[in-house]
């Protein structure tokens, strides 16, 4: 048996395809990406010339980059906080009921598996300046705001709208993670606390919350990375309109810089944006893990 499991040829045949794929499609391109970030791409000669940190210097003074970064950080903060509150609330309430728990859970999770591109179109219609929600408001004599077409404010209204749509779509994921953790907590802990006279709210505060702290870290890192990578919803809700420059996030700005029909093909600069994105992802994960680092309690 042991000999069979140490069969070198078999091991090689089993792992090689996956590892080769990983190296060729993922790790080599990452290296290339770092190199491109230090280059500028000439569209006519199709060549890259090394310019050192030039792309990153350009970022410092690029107003569009500043907007994209601002919006991305807004999504990051908003999704971390809102998903934590809503996810915990839903999970906490759901674990308190028996009948219909599965149904509610599955329905709330449903948008997570649906296409963001499709749902984005739906919400774009609902928040259209003339039809959609504003049509409904008009029946009551209220003139609604221009929603996705409004461009004022530090964080523009479209960003808030999309942030709430994203919360609607993805809160199921956080809820599920918290539910999984809460159902792992021993019932005897709660019984003991009720005997000591604790209310449900108090039990939640002093038993549930501390015990799910590690999961808060996990769920929040997932939200953070997800919101930094955010592309589908914004692209399908706002479209490829250059007049919407104030509504870029890092991912859409990268896409526009690299591939837009108008003014694209800046592969060097786009790679540099990609690098910033990865660094932000790592940074956010590291910070969140530091905040929620806990010793593991016995459950």
């Amino acid at each position, binding site marked *: 048996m042991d000999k069979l499991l140490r069969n070198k040829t*078999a091991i090689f045949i089993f792992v090689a395809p996956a590892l080769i794929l990983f190296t060729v499609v993922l790790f080599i391109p990452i290296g290339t990406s770092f190199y491109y970030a230090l280059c500028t791409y000439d569209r006519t000669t199709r060549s890259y010339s090394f310019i050192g940190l030039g792309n990153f210097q350009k970022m410092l003074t690029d107003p569009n980059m500043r907007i994209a970064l601002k919006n991305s950080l807004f999504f990051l903060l908003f999704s971390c906080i809102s998903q934590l509150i809503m996810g915990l609330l839903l999970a906490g309430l759901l674990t308190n009921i028996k009948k219909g728990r599965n149904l509610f859970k599955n329905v709330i999770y*449903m948008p997570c598996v649906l296409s963001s591109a499709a749902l984005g179109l*739906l919400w774009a219609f609902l928040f259209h300046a003339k039809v959609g929600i504003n049509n409904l408001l008009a029946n009551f004599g209220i003139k609604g705001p221009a929603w996705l077409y409004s461009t004022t404010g530090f964080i523009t209204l479209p960003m808030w709208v999309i942030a709430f749509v994203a919360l609607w779509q993805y809160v199921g994921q956080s809820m599920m993670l918290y539910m999984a953790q809460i159902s792992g907590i021993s019932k005897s802990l709660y019984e003991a606390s009720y005997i000591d006279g604790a209310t449900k709210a108090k039990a939640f505060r002093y038993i549930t919350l501390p015990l799910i702290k590690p999961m808060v870290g996990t769920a929040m890192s997932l939200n953070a990375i997800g919101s930094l990578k955010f592309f589908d919803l914004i692209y399908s809700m706002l479209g490829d309109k250059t007049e919407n420059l104030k509504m870029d996030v890092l991912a859409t700005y990268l*896409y526009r810089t690299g591939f837009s029909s108008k003014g694209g093909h800046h592969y060097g600069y786009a790679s540099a944006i990609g690098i910033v994105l990865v660094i932000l992802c790592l940074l956010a994960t590291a910070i969140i893990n530091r905040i929620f680092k806990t010793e593991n309690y016995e459950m």
Partner: protein
Amino acid sequence: MEKKKKKIKPSTILIYVFFIFMMVIYLAPVVWIAMTSLKTRAEIYKNPFAAPTVFHWENYKVAWEAGKLGIAMLNSLFVCVVTLVLTMLLGSMAAFAIGRMRWKLANAAMVYILIGMMIPVHCVLIPLFVRFANIGLSNNLWGLILPYLTFSLPTSVYIMTGFFRSIPNELLESACIDGCSIYKIFFQIALPLSRTGLFVTGLMTFIANWNELLLALVFISDGNKKTLPVALTKFVTPYQTNYDKMFPAIMIAIIPTIVVYTLFSNQIVDGLTTGAVKG
């Protein structure tokens, strides 16, 4: 307890009211897309929230033809099914070698693969695009399958490793005594025993790739090679949007996922949760 039923607490009623409200928030948009997809354009603009007076099923036919949805659906199916089969095969092979076979670098290989989970696809978008353009993989569905496969593998390897490790040793040993080769052990014993895991990874891979937009948008510009999410975004142009065609198109795109989800919602929810935690 003498009483037949426990007294229902007001807090429980409040919780149910809250969740029924949530159900409305989650289901109403889908119901509303379905309703709107059967209305004419004039009806949509005049009264977007009313039910259709006459069911205009022909909207679906128009949308299907105008958006080239038939071919987009076929492309999406092709890409997703190939990716799904390859992910299950390559993923479980690697998982078996890592989780069950004995070699020094097994843990290192696992770490190498799991790192892939943390890398956003945006980071490799440009190098891949440039490389693929050079070797004829842009505007080619295989150019989508390769990265989809690579980004689906970590989760499947992670889940399958767990399943393979839980197979009792005796089962494999008895097969060994019967003279099975290691390949036979893998394909005829380990794989069938882990079919739950295969099923979960398959569902997750399918859903993730069915909805993928960014790569498909960048790598495919040929109208006959577009996948469904990309075809959908084409219904919105900067100057006008054909709502009467857009809503049937949205329905066509989300119905397969809704059907799969309704059939297997418990497995999907559990699988996606496990898949998410390891990252």
